[in-house]
């Protein structure tokens, strides 16, 4: 697609529920990133994929968070047993080049998660 697409744009759920957030990166971009951003904060790194594999998942806060990218394109961030502290904007980004740390990232519009 022309840009990074994220769905849903808004998700309201109850504490303890399971949530899936989807990201469709720019066609041909091999690298895909998930970030989390709270109000007034900069993006917080969660996980990075190069192709189908999670090359760096060091930012996932705990084992309730999991992400997949089975065919090297669309990715799904999965959150189990949601907690109120999980409420945030979840941002997906992609880049054309192999990860170097200095990649230009193209972000999606984000998925706003609210856990009641």
């Amino acid at each position: 697609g022309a840009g990074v697409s994220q769905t849903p744009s808004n998700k309201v759920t109850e504490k303890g529920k399971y949530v899936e957030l989807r990201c469709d990166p720019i066609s041909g971009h091999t690298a895909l990133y998930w970030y989390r951003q709270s109000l007034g904060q900069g993006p917080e790194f969660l996980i990075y994929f190069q192709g189908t594999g999670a090359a760096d998942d060091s930012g996932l806060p705990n084992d309730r968070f999991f992400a997949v990218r089975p065919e090297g394109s669309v990715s799904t961030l999965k959150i189990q047993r949601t907690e109120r502290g999980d409420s945030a904007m979840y941002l997906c980004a992609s880049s054309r080049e192999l990860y170097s740390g200095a990649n230009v990232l193209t972000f999606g519009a984000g998925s706003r998660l609210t856990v009641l």
Partner: protein
Amino acid sequence: EDQVTQSPEALRLQEGESSSLNCSYTVSGLRGLFWYRQDPGKGPEFLFTLYSAGEEKEKERLKATLTKKESFLHITAPKPEDSATYLCAAVGLARKLIWGLGTSLAVNP
């Protein structure tokens, strides 16, 4: 520890009133310094990458500069549509992008 600090936290300007945003960084072996713009409820949008001290880049009313310790985003004769949060990020030898908290800019007509 690698760190990025942005100032001021918030800035309010009148249309046409030029100013600068600051990004101070402490990063071992800087590989790149990035500026992004973020509108409310949207993801960050890439503006500039700077790689070495002395480098400057321009885009419309924006100019980004880099020294060995900080970067400035100069805004010349801003317009209301320049209102946004401007985020700075740096990456060093650790190859981890370190983000600042951003400067929220409001330009009044």
